[in-house]
């Protein structure tokens, strides 16, 4: 009799409020945390060099594409005022130089892994000069347009050689494609040259 009673009287824990407690936790986390994932344009800055250690590099005129942003956020490319869409187009023709135009950059023959010997556009330089009073938005859009130009070229090449877009490439394939179209962007400060970007 005694034993039976004890077995029957296990009291149940009242868990009605557990839901409320966890709701409060949930709301706390919702308020204190932020969902925004950090996205952006990833760039590599050139290493810092001492003023005197800087070597002058002479680059042939055909290899240079000079971009400038003036104080009124106007974008000029080799002296012509252009729009962002035109810039992407210009970057494409400039870097690719499909018809070996003597006015567009030189290319060198190189052995590329996976692609064999091909003509690599590793001489070109895009120089950027942004006025101190221009806005960051103009600068960013210009960078974006340049990167877009390169991305389109790389995508084209990847499609031609591997049959799928650049985004689907393996690391080896990406390396091969970037070797053919390397990003060579050099930023210049108002005072003088600021260095290059490989």
């Amino acid at each position, binding site marked *: 009799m005694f034993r039976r009673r004890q077995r029957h009287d296990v009291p149940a824990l009242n*868990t*009605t409020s*557990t*839901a409320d*407690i*966890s*709701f409060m*936790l*949930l709301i706390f*986390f*919702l308020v*204190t*945390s*932020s*969902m925004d*994932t*950090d*996205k*952006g*344009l*990833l*760039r*590599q*800055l*050139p*290493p*810092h060099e001492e003023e005197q250690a800087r070597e002058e590099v002479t680059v042939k005129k055909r290899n240079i594409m000079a971009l400038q*942003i003036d104080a009124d956020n106007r974008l000029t490319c080799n002296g012509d005022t252009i729009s*962002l*869409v035109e810039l*992407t*187009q210009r970057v494409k023709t400039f870097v690719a130089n499909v018809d070996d135009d003597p006015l567009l950059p030189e290319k060198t023959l190189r052995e590329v892994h996976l692609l064999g010997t091909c003509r690599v556009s590793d001489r070109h330089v895009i120089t950027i000069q*942004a*006025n*101190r*009073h*221009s*806005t*960051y*938005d*103009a*600068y*960013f*859009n210009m*960078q*974006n347009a340049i*990167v*877009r130009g390169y*991305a389109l070229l790389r995508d084209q090449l990847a499609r031609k050689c591997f049959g799928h877009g650049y985004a689907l490439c393996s690391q080896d394939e990406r390396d091969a494609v970037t070797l053919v179209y390397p990003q060579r962007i050099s*930023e210049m*400060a108002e005072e003088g040259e*600021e*260095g290059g970007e490989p």
Partner: protein
Amino acid sequence: MKQRLFRRSNDSHDMMTLNTTSLPDLIFTVLFFFMIVTHMRDVDLKVQYQVPEGTEIQKLGHKASIVNIYVGKAENGEYAIQLNNQLSTISDIRTFLEQERKRMGSEDLARLTVSLRADRDVPMGIISDIKRELQKQNALRINYSATEKSKDTSKQ
């Protein structure tokens, strides 16, 4: 049969209670989901900024190796730089980076990325100064923070 069922439910005085035993588990699941996908807001923003829109942007990888620099309008209406929780100047970037580097492990140190969250209308002067300082401090991987713009508006 149908009638009996109807009568029974109509006559009964005690309503059937919904079984809520699994409700806490359910909410806990949602809670864990949020804890995983979000991260704590670790700074109070003292500057207002709206990052530019881009099409070629990438997702940033490892959160532990990212250092944020905010540039935007401060309360007095002037453009200012914010490091951690306070408004700072260009010269503070050095100590800030030293602090951040001390905090990081060697693995994160190699992947150190400075995320520049700058307002669209910030003059380029400030940005170039920051970039020059970062070069001096050998923090060379930078990220211009941006939001995705739908591709079709910028199609050539």
